[in-house]
């Protein structure tokens, strides 16, 4: 009978990575501990707060609840993988969070931005209810939700003004 290989491989922020790891290791620990991508944050560790949110094949997923074997062979995007047209530019969502004060301590912000990316990829012009639903798995302990709502609305507008839909997963990770 077959067991899952301990050689884990995936594409992380456009880069192919291979690791020898326990297949039940949390993706959160792989990202932060093994790959040094510490933009993804550790908080509740039970899937409630969204600080550890990443995209797997374009879908938002809590990396604290995802085991290595569940994301093997997939395309993983962390906050470090988002950028504007050039790698040294901010993504329009990141710009919007800066401009609208969509953060206070900033700890929840990477997760908020990742969830916003997933939301706007699916629904480029969400209404307030859809924004709340899309971000309901992300908690801001500073309770700065007013700024976050404005930031998501602004991000949607920015992307519309660029006359393009948000870049697809492949376009973003170039």
């Amino acid at each position, binding site marked *: 009978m077959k067991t899952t290989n301990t050689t884990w491989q995936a594409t992380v922020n456009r880069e192919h990575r291979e690791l*020898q*790891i326990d297949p039940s290791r949390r993706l959160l620990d792989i990202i932060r501990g093994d790959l040094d991508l510490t933009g993804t944050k550790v908080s509740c560790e039970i899937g409630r707060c*969204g600080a550890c949110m990443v995209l797997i094949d374009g879908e*938002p997923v809590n990396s604290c*609840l995802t085991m290595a074997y569940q994301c093997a062979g997939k395309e993983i995007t962390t906050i470090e993988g988002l950028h504007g047209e050039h790698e040294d530019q901010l993504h329009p969502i990141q710009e919007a969070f800066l401009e609208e004060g969509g953060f206070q301590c900033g700890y929840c912000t990477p997760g908020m931005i990742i969830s916003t990316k997933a939301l706007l990829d699916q629904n480029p012009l969400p209404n307030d209810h859809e924004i709340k639903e899309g971000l309901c798995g992300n908690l801001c302990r500073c309770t700065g939700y007013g700024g976050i709502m404005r930031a998501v609305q602004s991000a949607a507008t920015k992307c519309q003004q660029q006359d393009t839909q948000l870049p697809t997963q492949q376009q973003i990770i170039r």
Partner: protein
Amino acid sequence: MEMNIETSRIPDPFPCQVWEPADMEEAMMIKRQYGANAAFVAGGTLLRTQWEGGIVSKHEHLIRLDTIADLRGIDESDQHIHIGALTRLRECGADMYIANHGATLYEACRHIAAPSIRNQATIGGNIASAVGDAIPALLVHNASLHWADIGSKVDLIQQDIVDWLDVVKSGRRSLDAILMGIVLEKQSTEHQQEITFFRKIGRREAFTPSLVTVAFRAMVDPLGHFSQVRIAAGGGSGIAMRLSRCEQLLEGNRYHAEMITSIALLASEDFVTYSDPFASEQYRQQTAGNLLAAGLWESIHSQIERR
């Protein structure tokens, strides 16, 4: 191309072996071999939180169910909807077969956890937990569950969800069984209108585990008489149940405004629930009654407005 394979810098203190059974027989064989040291895993979201919270110790062996064919997907036949146990909650909350023939389940799946969890968690895992929010919805859709269990060979069992919950309550549940799928009855709505709703209350407005959930399904004829009434309540870590006296209050009768207060009182009397540091038993019972009454009032009035 030469590939640089790194080794994890932080070895896992509790490594485990992850098995990939090709079919039920293999899955059962591994479970038989390792017993309580092995756990079946579908989406794994609940299992990970249980490990993290110290509710269960990390298992030495995980038996993947996603490697077994035919456990995922939604099919329709003349009389039934079949949902594979490994179908993700997100897919259940977006499926038109379920929306048309299992409207309460459809709503429930759209309100379980957050979108990121629904991308990973499965309907089977929600049910197998015995306290998932899909369960009250399945009770009102007369759902049956298809299990595979360890016997001398693999036994396939079809069980009404009410009967399964009775087994859970009695503590006689088989922890070695694998949920394969869920079957919903289609119901003829000829000359009748179906009323359904699902209501959930948690500790805060955003995504949170439920305190109380209520599911409702009934047919209403053109004269306003209720039939085939099914009402269920659950939530938190309580076992969901049908509210039979509430069903009897409506069954065969025509809607009138006094029903609203009566059904709220009956539901709060009938709902068997529990207290914890977050909510008392009385609060949960009263909330179930209020959710039911409000849902019924809203549904009836929106139906009247549509006429």
